[in-house]
């Protein structure tokens, strides 16, 4: 079973609506986005979406961070989740880029236990971005 990570550590997934790809989007079902998608395609539809999940095929594919940020800049206020191959060391980046939470598989959680993720729960601190912008970017 996959786990959800946020600032409080690990928890069970409380989203029961499931996910579908963008082209068969239905109300009350979450949207799955590949890192190759163009966030611009969601323009005008963001108000109707309650959760978006960006799937990282590999932790070194950093497009997901820019996608998250673009979605937030386009005005998306719903739940935003990173999933797939994300590692604990990316937790702070994910949060700062606009994700609310990370979904990880059990295999990742085994090697990277809760403490590794909690280690970066201080992501609001030591952040050059909020210092240079003068406000939280979103």
């Amino acid at each position: 079973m996959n786990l959800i990570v946020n600032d409080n550590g690990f928890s069970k997934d409380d989203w029961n609506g499931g996910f579908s790809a963008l082209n068969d989007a239905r109300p009350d079902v979450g949207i799955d986005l590949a890192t190759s998608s163009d966030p611009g395609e969601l323009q005008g539809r963001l108000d109707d979406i309650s959760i978006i999940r960006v799937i990282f095929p590999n932790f070194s594919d950093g497009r997901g961070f820019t996608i998250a940020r673009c979605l937030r800049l386009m005005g998306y206020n719903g739940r935003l989740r990173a999933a797939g191959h994300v590692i604990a060391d990316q937790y702070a980046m994910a949060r700062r880029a606009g994700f609310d939470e990370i979904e990880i598989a059990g295999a990742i959680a085994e090697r990277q236990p809760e403490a590794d993720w909690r280690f970066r729960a201080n992501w609001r601190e030591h952040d050059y971005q909020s210092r240079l912008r003068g406000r939280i970017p979103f």
Partner: protein
Amino acid sequence: MYNYNDFDAKFVAERNRQFRRQVERRISGNLSEEEFKPLRLMNGLYLQLHAYMLRVAIPYGTLNSRQMRQLANIAERWDKGYGHFTTRQNIQFNWPKLRDVPDMLDALAEVDMHAIQTSGNTIRNVTADHFAGAAADEIADPRPVAELLRQWSTDHPEFQFLPRKFKIAVSGSPNDRAVIRAHDIGIGIVKRDGRIGYCIIAGGGLGRTPMIGKVISEFVTQENLLPYVEAVVSVWNLLGRRDNKYKSRIKITVHEHGIEKIRSLVEERFELLRRTYSGIDIKLFEEITAAFSPPEFQKVSAGEFELAYKSDPVFESWADTNLAKHRAEGYAIAQISLKAHGQTPGDATSDQMRAMADMAEEYGNDELRISHEQNVVLPHVRKSDLPAIHSILKKHGLATANIGLASDIIACPGMDYCALATARSIPVAQDISNLLKNLEDEIGELKIKISGCINACGHHHLGHIGILGLDRAGVENYQITLGGDATQNTALGRRTGPGFSHDKIVPAVERLILTYLELRENSGETFIEAYRRLGMEPFKSALYDRVHAHAAE
């Protein structure tokens, strides 16, 4: 000079705390090498041929004496007593042990230094003109902008896993000494209607597909600078190719999509991003600028300088090559050559580093610079102090009078250290430098640049004479290019023809130089000027025609 504020200091301490833990997790096996790799790279730690290598940032090439002394200590304590200064204003330590690296990083933090983002697929150490704040031809000091960009790019959450590395350079003068057209983004400070702004160049780079950067915006104002640069990197992050690492740099993205398309995407993204800046960065920029305000220059007589210049021919020749024009009367910019004949270009021992630190403290406003040409600069010295400085340099093997001459060679580490190398580059540089030692004053200005593989870390494309070491069926083979130019008139060198084996490359370079000496109009015509006038033919013939080839050997 900029000193870390509380925020910077805490940031680096926190970052070191994280890295120490990552090293522990790697040693215990909880991080795979695949996962550890980008994390160590983000902290400047490479795996080379024989050992780890730690690459330390010298942001915009500026150092004070305390920092230089600490580099000397680190080299002694955790390395073999020397360091290597690179073309990107970094220093590399070639022999650290993994478990020592967190301690080395703490030692750096004690003097406001770090190794953050000196490697990996992220925005690298921002480089700038090494004469910043001292040059007579400057519109504005580029270092405040470089520092602002350093802060902005450090740990930028969107840009730690880019398609590939991303390099930014800033020049504050129309005479480009920072090679801004060969960077992913080059920033030139310009003035329009009395206002300072930035000309942004994108898509330059060397490597296997060298490209000269293109202007993406002619004039970006201070308040738009960060969101504009952010928009460029952000657009490339989504668009840049991740299927082929040889096609992932922004130069290829710009080439494949065209600069107009990229420009319009950037402008669109910029409109979104500018709203996230409240304007506080302007205030920060002003504070940073104040920290870089120039020292007070005094009026001092240059009498002692004139006297030594007239009476000591060794000093005279050093002064003629190693000094550059300072903006203040009675002052000079003194360059310390790390290219002693026959030595490794860019290497300095701990003793030499300490000597340079002492001189900076005593005579140089406590400032040192590292140039992309792998030399050290004392940016503000009184001319009257130069005889004393010169005699100290002599004692430490640092008085080589060859800045800008044939033996002032840029060479990458090549096969002696680098895991990617296809040929040696350091020994070629050493042999050329020994060969031309007695001829180089006669030759005059000449830029020779050597890379040990197609990645072009030695900037060979931009050398008047460029040398690229390849591997042909297990044998080293060196290709020559001619006519490269690293200034504002950036040009890529053209290949002369087939390459030369290791024992034939130095005689080949010699033939090029003898041909130049024979054909130049007068001693005022430099190699590159003669090449531009004469074209490739006479040089090609010197390289490949049997008659010439035999005559010179």
